[in-house]
């Protein structure tokens, strides 16, 4: 009998240890769950101006919504073999670009005035693929396995060799990820992005580059799989899919200082929203396979590993957003942003800068109900 009890206790402890990563109780998580909405967001593309027109992308297609409109209008419909995959709103031209999977990749320009879409020809061989960035830049891929890429303006596609910036990652390197900061606001202000290439192997080999709007800068290549990044002044903060936070200084991007290891993982292009409270920088994150959010807090101007903290948040804004599967965001002002999700629609969030890493209701000033967002 004693032996049986010991075996049962051991089994119990073994299984009980499985909830070590949970940040909410099992029945609490179920009781607070909400039904997924039918609208599946892919991207908050941009807005014309404050309290003006908003463009966003869902699995149905590209939508426009005016501030006073009750409902959004579908302006480009995703159809089989011509599904909109990504889009960009050009604030200076007041036009949209969008990429579809037609013919394995087609680019169009949409004029909101005429409501007409015009195909933009993608250069022929050796170009084999391309990506459209939210700020309107195009990243072209050269011949297979060549490891050659170009960054080019959307109106210079025909002369990409002369007007684009060539990046030679090396033979065998292919796209791993293209990253736009979560606090992206508009195309004419947010010109930078980060791109990472991977060469399959054991382990995989990565090459990372930062495009600052004017030129391409090589970065540290030992970061591993990048999840997302943020630009704060002249500093870059990088989150990896393993949950590590790194700090890099512009001008010395080959040096990466690890600030913190979170114990949870992240998807590629995960939500990584920076909030500056004056004394500290906070990065709101939404780990994958977690029932809470995490906020990294770094001393502004003096980021160090021993002063960087990570807070687990499941109340306040996190009570609403933690299980929504955030896919995209758009900054409205310094403390207000839109969050588009795959499961629960879109929200507008106004955080409290000083309390953004607190696990209670003080971390948020206002948060809309699903689909009742304001912009």
């Amino acid at each position: 009998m004693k032996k049986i009890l010991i075996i049962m206790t051991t089994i119990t402890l073994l299984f009980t240890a499985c909830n070590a990563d949970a940040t909410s109780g099992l029945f609490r998580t179920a009781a607070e769950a909400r039904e997924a909405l039918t609208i599946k967001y892919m991207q908050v593309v941009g807005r014309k101006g404050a309290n003006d027109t908003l463009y966003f992308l869902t699995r149905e297609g590209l939508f426009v919504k005016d501030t006073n409109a009750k409902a959004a209008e579908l302006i480009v419909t995703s159809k089989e073999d011509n599904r909109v995959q990504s889009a960009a709103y050009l604030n200076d031209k007041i036009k949209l670009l969008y990429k579809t999977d037609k013919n394995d990749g087609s680019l169009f320009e949409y004029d909101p005035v005429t409501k007409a879409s015009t195909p933009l020809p993608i250069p022929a061989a050796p170009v084999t693929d391309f990506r459209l960035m939210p700020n309107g830049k195009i990243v072209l891929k050269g011949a297979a396995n060549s490891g050659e890429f170009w960054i080019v303006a959307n109106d210079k596609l025909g002369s990409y060799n002369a007007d684009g910036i060539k990046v030679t990652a090396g033979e065998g390197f292919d796209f791993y990820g293209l990253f736009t900061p979560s606090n992206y606001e508009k195309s004419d202000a947010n010109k930078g992005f980060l791109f990472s290439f991977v060469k399959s192997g054991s382990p995989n080999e990565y090459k990372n580059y930062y495009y600052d709007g004017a030129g391409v800068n090589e970065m540290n290549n030992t970061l591993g799989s990048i999840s997302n990044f943020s630009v704060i002044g002249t500093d870059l903060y990088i989150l990896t899919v393993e949950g590590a936070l790194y700090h890099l200084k512009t001008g010395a991007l080959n040096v990466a200082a690890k600030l913190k290891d979170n114990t949870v993982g992240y998807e590629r292009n995960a939500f990584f929203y920076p909030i500056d409270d004056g004394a500290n920088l906070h990065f709101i994150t939404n780990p994958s396979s977690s029932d809470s959010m995490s906020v990294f807090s770094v001393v502004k101007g003096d980021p160090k590993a021993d002063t960087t903290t990570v807070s687990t948040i499941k109340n306040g804004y996190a009570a609403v957003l933690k299980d929504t599967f955030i896919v995209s965001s758009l900054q409205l002002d310094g403390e207000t942003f839109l969050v588009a999700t795959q499961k629960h629609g879109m929200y507008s969030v106004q955080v409290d800068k000083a309390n953004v890493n607190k696990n209670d209701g003080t971390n948020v000033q206002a948060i809309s109900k699903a689909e009742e967002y304001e912009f």
Partner: protein
Amino acid sequence: MLLLILVLSVGLSAEPFYDKGSQTFSFTLGTTVPTFVHFFSTNETRVGLGVDNTGMKIGGYGAISYQAFTSPYSAIGGEIGYNFNYVVDGNLYTAVPFFFKYSYLPVQGTIDLPISVGLGFVYNSGGANTSIMTLYSNIELGLTYFPGEHWGFGVRTGLWLIPELNYRKELFGDNALAGFVPITLSVSYRQ
């Protein structure tokens, strides 16, 4: 109802069918209805299915059980099963209960009416890395019809009680007691 009274009277009028040492094997299949969740820290009880209640939907349960009679009216044994309920957000709650079972059969023969209590453990699992082994208890009432000597078909219902007692301090506020009502069909073999 008349048929039920008739068969019950047949069962009641009979001599005890089982002897010490008799055995029953049962296979159970049916549904479970998430009934309530009580959170101790806030003294809040959420009753019913779906959003703002238990958050769960009607699910399914399958189990096998074995019992041996220690007297003509009492049997002890065990049961192991698998239960699932979808949560409204699309996640899946699963439970694997395994427990000791005591049954009292005041009516037996052509009709068995077992009254059972169970006590054991259940391995619970949900979305987002949430899984926990907890205690498990239940009470069940059953009605099994044996058209022949060995094989019988029955229905069962009752109440499961699953306490979630988290061992980490930050989760103490989520300690809860959940109740499920199973409604199952069973096939039994006795000898």
